[in-house]
């Protein structure tokens, strides 16, 4: 997914939305094409099914349009958009059911680290497991336990730069760099059983 000059494009699209009238439709179209799939992916990573994710994407854009005048420019526009996306998801969880506890606070890793000697216990590998199967399994377990960190790795995989990831996870660019580095360390833990396959090949 190429991300080219998105921030400037976002600002242009947002200005059209604020302008109202037919310009608004044009702005919504541009912003939707740039963000909808990413919002939806975020919701899917947080454990929502496709239908709910689609509904919350709609809700998010409606709220962006409804509150477009409240954006004061005191934070990056992308961060403001992602905040609305996150709030809409939280509203959904409040209305329906609480989120799984392990997803509530991804930074709970530090507490877990302090309180537990063993961060991850490894299940025995299934018979005839390949290296790819092992990595798939490791990432799936990681995503289940640390959805936000898994999403960040997915954003890196898609080619997002630090500024965009910072906006998506509501952190400063510096804190985001540190967070990504931590994500690497954590996923390496989950992929540790795959080292045997790596050394064998």
């Amino acid at each position, binding site marked *: 997914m190429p991300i080219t000059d998105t921030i400037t494009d976002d600002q242009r699209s947002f200005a059209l939305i604020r302008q*109202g*009238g037919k310009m*608004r*439709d044009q702005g*919504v179209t541009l912003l939707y094409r740039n963000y909808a799939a990413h919002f939806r992916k975020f919701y*899917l990573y947080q454990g929502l099914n496709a239908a709910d994710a689609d509904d919350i994407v709609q809700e998010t854009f409606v709220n962006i349009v409804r509150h477009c005048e409240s954006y004061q420019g005191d934070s990056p526009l992308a961060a403001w958009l992602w905040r609305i996306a996150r709030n809409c998801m939280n509203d959904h969880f409040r209305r329906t059911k609480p989120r799984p506890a392990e997803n509530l606070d991804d930074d709970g890793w530090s507490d877990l680290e302090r309180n537990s000697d063993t961060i991850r216990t490894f299940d025995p590998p299934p018979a005839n497991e390949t290296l790819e199967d092992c990595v798939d399994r490791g*990432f799936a377990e990681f995503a289940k336990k640390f959805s936000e960190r898994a999403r960040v*790795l997915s954003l890196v995989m898609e080619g997002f730069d630090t500024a965009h990831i910072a906006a998506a996870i509501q952190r400063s660019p510096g804190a985001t760099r540190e967070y990504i580095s931590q994500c690497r360390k954590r996923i390496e833990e989950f992929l540790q059983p795959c080292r045997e396959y790596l050394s064998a090949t």
Partner: protein
Amino acid sequence: MNKDEDQDWLDALAGKPTQNADPEVTRRATLLRHAIQRHDAALGVNEFDDEAGLQKLKFRMRREGLSGESKPAFYSNRFVKYAMAASIVLTIGLTMRLYLHEQPMQNEADIMRGSNQQIVLAADPEARLKQLAFELDRLGIKYQVERKDGKILLKAQGVDPVKEDVADFLERNHIKPPVGMDVELDIRPLAKP
């Protein structure tokens, strides 16, 4: 893990070319990259019909008045003036058409309804009064006739629109069924050109 190694790993994860990177670091990152792609595919990340979603969004925005509407400030004063002028011309035109009609109108337009009173326009008000009074007598409905300044006011009591013959009378004479049981008809002459 040093910073360079971190960056190499991130580049490989993003599918960017890495130069002088430890092949083992690149290999691990590439394996993870493919695992994430398979994970995303399994989640249905790529099964997003953004065009359908966009159309749905636009429909909802129209329904909620968020789309295609200019802000109030967008309307120029000139637009408002033209709209008001058009409304006035339309009102005058319709009023003139109604009053300058030569023949009594045999449709609902010859009854102009107020809150309690209904205006009946007739080429010959006296004849119309006679006809209405005759029908009211036939239905056994009590009424009074008042005349003032050339106007004829026919006041009928006990007009029950639920009764079939009364409903028929009201319909034939284009009189709106009363909310209560009383009807006041202001019978006026049609203006001639």
